[in-house]
């Protein structure tokens, strides 16, 4: 069982990770673009790596059985594809020193979205009674409101990019708009007091990722993006929030040792 103390400790560690990552990125940016690129790329190994490991742990705990089990199995798909994508990006950026966009990494980034969408559906399923049509309508409108300017920006950009690159760049805001709907629903439920903070972390993480993608799109279109750009903080924070969201579930659904159970049974006798 996750006690109040464990909950507050989890929140402390979360805050520490968020502030720590922001501080590292800030220092890296002060040290120059080359150092920033190196440090940020290296941060993308342990941060998404931790998420992949934690998601495997929770998926193994739930197996594929049950609604939660299916949700976590889908989440492993997301964590694995984005982890692979980040490592491919790192290799292109640090080893080959070429522009990682567009590259094979995009296949893995985009492959994560269907997993993320299906996961969020299963994740919100136990809360379906609290989700009214009004909440769905507001979330959909907000997603469309974000999609239209993003599409316009990408399409209207003066960058000399090929049709394939443009299609690839456009596919991100579309995928983001789709995953934004369940994420906003989760955040609205949190503000209405229907779910606790740790439960809503997964949805906040999706929200941050969508904001980061929009920022990435804007900075890529005016060629101002580089690995380590302040917008990367949002991606890293998104991974951290996802990780803490998964971790809190691992804490809640701890494996209870049969030894403890039999001990308790003995107490009853």
């Amino acid at each position: 069982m996750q006690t109040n103390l464990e909950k507050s400790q989890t929140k402390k560690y979360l805050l520490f990770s968020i502030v720590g990552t922001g501080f590292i990125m800030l220092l890296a940016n002060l040290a120059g673009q080359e150092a920033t690129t190196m440090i940020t790329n290296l941060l993308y190994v342990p941060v998404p790596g931790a998420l992949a490991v934690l998601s495997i742990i929770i998926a193994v705990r739930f197996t594929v059985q049950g609604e939660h089990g299916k949700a976590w199995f889908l989440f492993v798909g997301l964590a694995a594809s984005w982890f692979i994508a980040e490592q491919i990006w790192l290799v292109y950026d640090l080893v080959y020193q070429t522009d990682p966009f567009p590259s094979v990494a995009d296949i893995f980034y985009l492959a994560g979205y269907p997993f993320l969408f299906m996961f969020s559906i299963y994740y919100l399923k136990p809360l379906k009674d609290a989700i009214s049509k009004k909440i769905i309508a507001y979330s959909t409108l907000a997603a469309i409101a974000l999609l239209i300017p993003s599409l316009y920006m990408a399409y209207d950009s003066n960058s000399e990019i090929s049709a394939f690159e443009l299609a690839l760049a456009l596919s991100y805001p579309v995928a983001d708009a789709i995953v934004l709907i369940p994420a906003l629903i989760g955040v609205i439920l949190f503000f209405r007091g229907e779910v606790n903070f740790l439960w809503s972390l997964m949805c906040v993480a999706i929200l941050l990722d969508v904001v980061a993608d929009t920022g990435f799109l804007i900075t890529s279109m005016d060629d101002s993006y580089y690995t380590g750009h302040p917008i990367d903080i949002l991606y890293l924070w998104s991974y951290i929030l996802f990780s803490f969201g998964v971790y809190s579930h691992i804490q809640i659904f701890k494996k209870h040792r049969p030894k403890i159970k039999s001990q308790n049974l003995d107490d009853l006798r």
Partner: protein
Amino acid sequence: MYDATNGEISKALVTLAIEKTLLTMGKPVLDEVAHRLFANYKCFIPDCHEHPEYLKSVLKELYGNCYNNIVKSIKKNLEEFATKKSIEHFLTVISE
């Protein structure tokens, strides 16, 4: 041969309904609910037949205000036995 009483049958039906609902969500959910019931109230899932408020409180602890959906599913599993007095009591308390 041992003949089960009405009370025992109701208890078994309620236990099955709770376990079926929680298993639909996942085995760790059932384990966690059972663990919290014991840790907080020194009771087991079958005891929820007499103390539905314990189950309600544990579900609320786990799922916040959204525990209603789980209660709804338990109710659905017990739908055809809802006329039995003890099951009716269980359903009334858990739905309050």
